[in-house]
């Protein structure tokens, strides 16, 4: 079978990409690994989805269902339980996607690929937790699957590692179902998640947040029994004598996400070590022509609304690729400068308006986003690494430069 675009991943990025590509008249195939569309949204039963694009506060499943209904309504072909085994870069114009599903292994030819396979969670070994390898240590996403899809409660005395939004939201989930959340432990001196989640997920339930602390060790026979925690200083060095033990039966790891890019790496897609995702241009096209990446495979996002935008933009890129090809007189390189952890996209044409997505290195108040090469300066009252900054660059503002550095400083 031949397609204009094969979308890999049926989460918000992939759903939005498939819909937009269909609207633009492309022949689309959507592939998803799960038994249902929506990616992780169906298990994110909390609200906070859609505030930007719909100006409404949906829960994850509701937000997903809006898109899923449209996919069904427009009869866009999709396959469930379809795991992509390989993307083959046949030529600049054609790709082959090999996937397996309950129908068997299939190969499809396509002009473009929009890769929206999401991210994986960092696990206990990656973050250096030692001790016993026992039941009760699980990632936040795994706990969500048990609780909010399967209806099983994984534990009753819970210690949460990481104060990102997922960790905070899971603290509330456990507390609402009658479990005791002992504490949330965060390595950084500031919380990783949105302020409103500290308020409504921790403060509402009197759950203590231990900043500048980390979990060293988990012990137990069969099941987790206790965890050892230590205070760390501003250089992340452990403070001797500050260790203490907490009794718990569950250690929930919410220590960040890593873009899943192995199939992209295998075809030589350039990866940005700072985002963990591919290097892309303003259509989120990677260094391999015709292969686009969106959502958490591109960069770890904090709002689903932005993921949807990425999906739609990539679909527009795919349409352009199919119709006339993507090119630029020259690609302007976007570089992360002082105070900036990363910027996406990495290259822009200067021929249209774009959003730059960036994260700062540390929380700061009353700072400016400087774009020295084009002489722009945007004031920000408060910035923090947990909140992605979006800077709109209008085409008229993008001057004839080779590079634009993005700095965040006083």
């Amino acid at each position, binding site marked *: 079978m031949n397609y204009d675009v094969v979308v890999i991943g049926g989460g918000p990025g992939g759903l939005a990409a498939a819909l937009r590509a269909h609207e633009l008249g492309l022949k689309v195939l959507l592939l998803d690994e799960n038994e249902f569309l929506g990616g992780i949204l169906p298990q994110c039963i909390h609200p906070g989805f859609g505030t930007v694009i719909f100006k409404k506060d949906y829960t994850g499943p509701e937000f997903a269902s809006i898109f899923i209904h449209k996919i069904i309504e427009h009869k866009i072909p999709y396959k469930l339980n379809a795991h992509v085994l390989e993307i083959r870069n046949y030529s600049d114009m054609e790709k082959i996607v090999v996937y397996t599903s309950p129908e068997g292994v299939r190969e499809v030819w396509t002009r473009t690929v929009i890769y929206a396979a999401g991210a994986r969670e960092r696990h206990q070994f990656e973050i250096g937790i030692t001790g016993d390898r026992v039941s009760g240590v699980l990632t936040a996403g795994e706990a969500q699957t048990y609780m909010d899809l399967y209806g*099983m409660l994984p534990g*009753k005395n819970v210690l949460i590692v990481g104060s990102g939004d997922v960790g905070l939201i899971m603290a509330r989930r456990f507390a609402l*179902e009658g479990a005791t959340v002992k504490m949330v432990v965060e390595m950084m001196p500031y919380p990783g998640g949105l302020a409103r989640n500290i308020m409504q997920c921790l403060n509402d339930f009197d759950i203590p947040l231990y900043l500048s602390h980390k979990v060293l060790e988990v012990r137990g026979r069969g099941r987790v029994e206790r965890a050892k925690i230590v205070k760390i200083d501003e250089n992340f060095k452990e403070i001797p004598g500050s260790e203490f033990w907490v009794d718990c039966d569950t250690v929930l790891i919410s220590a960040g996400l890593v873009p899943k890019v192995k199939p992209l790496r295998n075809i030589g897609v350039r990866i940005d070590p700072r985002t963990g995702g591919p290097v892309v241009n303003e259509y989120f096209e990677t260094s391999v022509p015709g292969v686009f990446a969106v959502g958490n495979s591109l960069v770890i996002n904090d709002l689903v609304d932005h993921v949807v935008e990425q999906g739609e933009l990539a679909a527009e890129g795919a349409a352009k690729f199919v119709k006339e090809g993507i090119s630029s007189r020259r690609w302007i390189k976007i570089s992360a400068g002082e105070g900036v952890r990363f910027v996406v996209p990495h290259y822009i044409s200067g021929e249209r308006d774009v959003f730059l997505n960036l994260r700062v290195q540390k929380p700061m108040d009353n700072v400016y986003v400087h774009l020295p090469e084009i002489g722009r300066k945007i004031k920000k009252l408060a910035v923090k690494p947990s909140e992605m900054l979006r800077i709109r660059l209008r085409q008229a503002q993008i001057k004839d430069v080779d590079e634009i550095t993005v700095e965040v400083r006083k």
Partner: protein
Amino acid sequence: MVKVAVIGAGVTGMSIVRELTRYQNIEVHVIEKQSDVGWGVSKANTALIHGGYDDDPERFPVRAKLCIRGNRLWHRWVKELQIPHIWNGALIVAKKDEDFKELEILLERGRKNGVPEMRIIEREELFAMEPHVVKDALGALWVPVVGQIGPIPAVIAIAENAVANGAKLHLDSEVLDIEHTEKDWIIKTPQESIRADYVINAAGLYADKIARMAGFENFSITPRKGEYWLFDDDVAPKPAHVLFPTPTKISKGVVVTTEISGHLMIGPNAQNLPAEEKENLANTREGLDEVWHKAQEIWPAMPPRSKVIRTFAGLRPEPPEGDFIIRHEDAGFINAAGIRSPGLTSAPAIAEEVANIIAGLGVELKIKNDWNPMRQEISHFFMMTPQMVNDMVAKSPAYGKIVCRCNKVSEGDVLEAIERMKFIGVKTPCVDSVKFRTKATTGTCQGSFCRPRIVKLLAEAYNLQPWQITLKGPGSEMGVGDIKVLLRGDAQ
């Protein structure tokens, strides 16, 4: 019928059992406290089929004799039983001139023990074989007979073959007491009393305790901990051979190797624990750091720590004198105890040895005509061509549906694994049982995607609720109950 009870379903016990199922006049029972086979000492080790150059025949005559014999037997066993393995050889790396003296000793000892094809190689040949070994390496002892194996897959394969040939496995059956009557032995477990004419003690770390129950108080087993790091399969470079440093008086040293699934693995260190710490399998930062630094001494190209997918620890059962204790004590009680390294290598040879001891006690061993040496491995999606997958899908769509995305394990693979668990008598459904049979949950993400799916498949197959499924046996349940159990207040 002569009834034999083997205590311990590790690689030693199960190898003995497989050997004994060859005889028509022997009925074999295996008694194991864990929920599945191979979960004690056999589970966490360096997974090597050693060469047999390491065991001093003067000090450790049993080890010296059985290691190379076991190595030779494994060549047949891995094929009959379809056990994952690779025969890639080992290099013992010399970094100083005086290291060659030590290598000469190993070479000579190997020759005495009957290890063929060993030789000392020079720098140039070493770097041709291992371009990324430490730059100041001067040469190595090349031991081509060394191999690598999946230790738990090996025990599982042996167990399936033994059960197919008539052995009876009693899992979740901790031995509580052993009684000797006038004419036989009675072994008591929480569920039953098992009568036996002969008892074989292959209880690993607890072989001393089992021997004491039977009235033999002549040895004690102490645990020695070894810790390991395992890296993702996409790290580079990885060695093509098993790399050892030149051994010191104290230790064989930290091994750097690419284990059979393609993961870079380093370890172990050696930490002697008090006799009572036989369940202390905890990883320690000190131990892991030690392993890391020692590995760097022969393999400086270590991956970044973000590529670590697992750390683990194993315990070796150290006998008091260092040599295996394989002997008939009295009245039909036979010890196969203190099976430390090279125990995995020696297991098939230990099995022969124990059969000889039984024969020596006056039991005529009559060969079973229909004994089947062959056992078939379950299907693995990751080893199939697309055509093979499609043929399987024609029988069941589950073979096309991926459960473990990192390692490409299909639902069909998992269902076969569960069938095999039931076949050998696994009563407590454990995620680890599926893991060791399929490799699910052992990839880059360490199971956060597929573990819930496996829990569900186990719950369906065993007709239980998801929260009753365990990670690794009773006491490691995956949940406390349904989502409302605490709110209703009826949690246990």
